[in-house]
């Protein structure tokens, strides 16, 4: 088991999971910003992805040139097997900790 994931790292991983094959810097940033409502710089996303890649939780590859964005290629990110386990663990921990709390949270 590697070092526990930070909160933002978990959020980035959930974004990867949501975006599946379309996960690269710009989409990840937009996904997080639109779902959390948290204004986010692209550098912060790059920093976290880089750290996750060093930990072996995500891997990246450069895509093929596209007609969009001036023909510039994208750097795609995806979960490794270790990453898949880490995000599942994180989700389960979250789910177990939050189970049954909905009513109480609303009452707060």
């Amino acid at each position: 088991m590697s070092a526990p994931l930070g909160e933002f790292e978990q959020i980035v991983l959930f974004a990867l999971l949501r975006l599946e094959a379309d996960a690269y810097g710009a989409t990840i940033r937009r996904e997080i910003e639109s779902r959390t409502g948290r204004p986010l710089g692209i550098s912060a996303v790059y920093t976290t992805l880089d750290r996750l890649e060093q930990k072996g939780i995500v891997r990246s590859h450069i895509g093929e040139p596209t007609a969009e964005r001036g023909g510039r290629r994208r750097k795609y990110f995806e979960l490794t097997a270790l990453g898949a386990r880490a995000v599942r663990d994180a989700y389960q921990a979250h789910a177990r900790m939050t189970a049954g709390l909905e009513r109480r949270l609303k009452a707060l």
Partner: protein
Amino acid sequence: MSRLALLVIRLATPPADREWVLGDTIEEYEAHARADGPSAAHFWLLREALRVVAWAPRHRRAIGRARRGLSGTDLMRFLDDLRQDLRYSVRVLLQVPAFSFVVVLTLALGIGANTAIFSVVNALLLTPLPYKDPDRLVRLVENVPAEESPNGRAVRLSTIQQEDFLAWREQSRTLSHMAIYSSPVAMTLSGRGEAVRLNGRRVSPALFAMLGMPPIMGQFFDEHDAAPGANPRIVLSHRAWQRYFAADRNVLTASLILDGRSYAVIGITRPDFEFPDPQTEFWAPLMPTDVPSTGVTRVQMIARLVDGASLESATAEANVIGGRLRGDPASAESGRQ
């Protein structure tokens, strides 16, 4: 889209990563433009570029440069270290504000005092006077002992009675080229638009020859200026010439109305001629005989040591002459410097 902002981001990004970083940036820009309009997108891009500049090392690290081990000893690495050190220093100083305040105050006072002292030392000691043989110039200062002083206290006088000047000139053998000058006098220049107040000095016509610094234009006083009834003439400082006459060369043919009296401008001094101080804007002749007309009674005296005379011998002689003029040669004490 701001090409400059894109260029900044491009330069801050390692070449291998430029394509996808710029691609992401452009895509984001277009998304912002669609959602919030072009000006909002423009603003976002500028902000992003500024952020990249401010955080260039982090930005480069973030996109994987450091991990890949590409050139870790370049300028960006140095800047990164420097930035971290600065941030650390600021953080530590902010944790102890009282101490920091004292440190800053001490530094400020130290630097201020140093600057002030250097200015004085530079002006007085390091920069030589711009005049000819400045080390032969002397100024008369009279130390009157308490028993001879009218108010019973020892006094140091830097001025002499104007009528005593003739006696000094006749009796001194160690001094040559003696000249006197008044304390500041102000005259109103009128007849040229708005009236202005000029600060100047009345000086012996011989003063300029003594200092040995030629005018930048025109000429200085000669012995005729000291003669009674001479046409009033005046020398202007370089600064006054520039400030009030826009460096007009025709000023030498014009006459100026000063305090209602017409003066012919005969010369302009060099810019570094600041005698006796930089505030002096004109020099008018001072005749030892025209005490009532100018109202100048006490004057300062400067002179040149004659060749072969030492400062000590001149001081000894001045003590005798000064004492004699005070009417008490035995206990007279006056000095020159």
